[in-house]
């Protein structure tokens, strides 16, 4: 479904991605792990069009998205739950969700309405807070809102950037359970996560990033046993989050 070939991203003199290739097949739940500064977020920014890729190609279901502007990528079936959630704080929960479906504004109202119900069923706590400003939600609720907002675009591929960041373990568990349910319903997901244990337990296949390069890939279960992963996480370069 998603093919990224030889992606390079740099910010001025800093090379964040140095030629990364990866694939995500339809229905897969793929992980990207690695320490801070490994280029995980840059990968998602490049895939979603928020930063340009200096070299390489991005293909979604065979269509070349490399030159497609950021605001048109959601219409091609790709939605992102960004790092730090980036919900529209001064707007209400309902407005955030409505804007998630912005690119579908020509779609029948009933269809969007049904998706809204689906999201509010998925995250019942949001239903009680639809009129509240997003900025007043707790971190976990904001994360749910960011996921719900992304789902409102009816993506075929969901990009997730550190959904566990700054959340209490019990909230993280709840969110990952929901992600698992969405995946079981057929949603293809690419998860970037610093918490390697969590990511490897959630995904079926993973890539290990380090300083802008893919240093390992394989089944998540095998990677859990890999000495390399252990070394990266315990070897002093970056720390595992808890």
């Amino acid at each position, binding site marked *: 479904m998603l093919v990224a070939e030889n992606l390079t991203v740099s910010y001025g003199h800093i090379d964040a991605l140095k030629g990364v290739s990866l694939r995500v097949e339809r229905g897969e739940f793929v992980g990207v792990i690695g320490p801070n500064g490994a280029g995980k977020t840059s990968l998602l920014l490049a895939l*979603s*069009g*928020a930063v340009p890729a200096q070299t390489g190609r991005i293909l979604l279901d065979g269509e070349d998205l490399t030159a497609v*502007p*950021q*605001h*048109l990528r*959601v*219409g091609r079936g790709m*939605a*992102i739950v*960004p790092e*730090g*959630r*980036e*919900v*529209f*704080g*001064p*707007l209400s929960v309902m*407005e955030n969700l*409505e*804007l*998630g479906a*912005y*690119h579908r*504004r020509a779609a029948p109202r009933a269809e969007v309405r049904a998706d809204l119900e689906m999201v509010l069923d998925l995250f019942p706590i949001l239903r009680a807070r639809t009129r509240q400003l997003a*900025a007043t939600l707790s971190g976990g609720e904001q994360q749910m809102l960011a996921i719900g*907002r992304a789902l409102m*675009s009816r993506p075929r591929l969901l990009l997730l950037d550190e959904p566990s960041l700054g959340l209490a373990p019990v909230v993280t568990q709840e969110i990952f359970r929901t992600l698992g349910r969405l995946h079981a319903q057929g949603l293809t997901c690419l998860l970037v996560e610093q918490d390697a244990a969590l990511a490897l337990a959630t995904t079926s296949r993973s890539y290990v990033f380090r300083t802008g390069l893919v240093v390992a890939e394989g089944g998540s279960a095998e990677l859990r046993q890999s000495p390399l992963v252990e070394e990266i996480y315990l070897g002093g370069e970056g720390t595992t989050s808890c």
Partner: protein
Amino acid sequence: MLNLVPLLLANGIVFGAIYGINAVGFSILYNSTNIINFTQGEFVMLGGMLTYALYEQAHLPLWLAALGAIAATTAIGLLVERLAIRPLWRRQAKDWTYVFMLFAVATVLPNLVMLLISRDAHTLPAFGGAATLKLGSVTFTSQAVWVLALTLVIAVALHGFYNHTLLGKAMKASAVNARAAAWMGIPVERMVALSFALAALLGALGGIVFTPLTSTQFNAGVSFTLKGFGAAIIGGLGNITGAIVGGLMLGILEALSTAFISSLYGDAVTYAILFVILLVRPTGFFRPLVELREQEI
């Protein structure tokens, strides 16, 4: 002198309404771009001067001249965005670059008007003829009623636009977080262009209904910019209702200080009072529609 107060208040309200419409222009642009639009007053001047040109020089009927001036000013607003703002936006210029660029535009526009239309002050006939509306001891001219009605319509329409239309919400979202808005599929650059068009349109409307009350001239824009900006700040920059309330406060202050202190120091007194208000309430009287650029970027 005190029996003049109702009349002064009425006058202040009418002028204040114009400042308010103008302040709304500031707030719209601030809401969607974070930019303080220092050409806002020029749009007011263009509204008046272009209507004059089309009415007196091209001999169109007044209503057609007014429509033409609104359309032309809106087009100029779009042009300003396209030629002066978008190139900076694309290269992620700092906020102060926009300010300087807009000052440059605000210098060029009046000079063009002076060269192409007229260097003299001009007025327009009142829209409703000589009819008047009497409220107690105060008589409003038909033009004053036009101004007040227009202000009310603008306030209600914009409130509905920002809170009940997807486009209005998308404009707010673009202002809060342009990157996240683009992820939603919102064409952020088009939102910026649209807000320039909207600000220019409001400016032109304000200029057209204002001109019959006194007169306008190629160099009238600066004062409108200052007063509109002042009104927007008093009201809480970014808040539509606040902008109009701020405008009314400014207009009333101006009318009273001119009458009771001295017309000589009219502006000085007005700004001195503004100064005190801002010391007491640095963020104005209303919360902005959207609290921009919070921790989340």
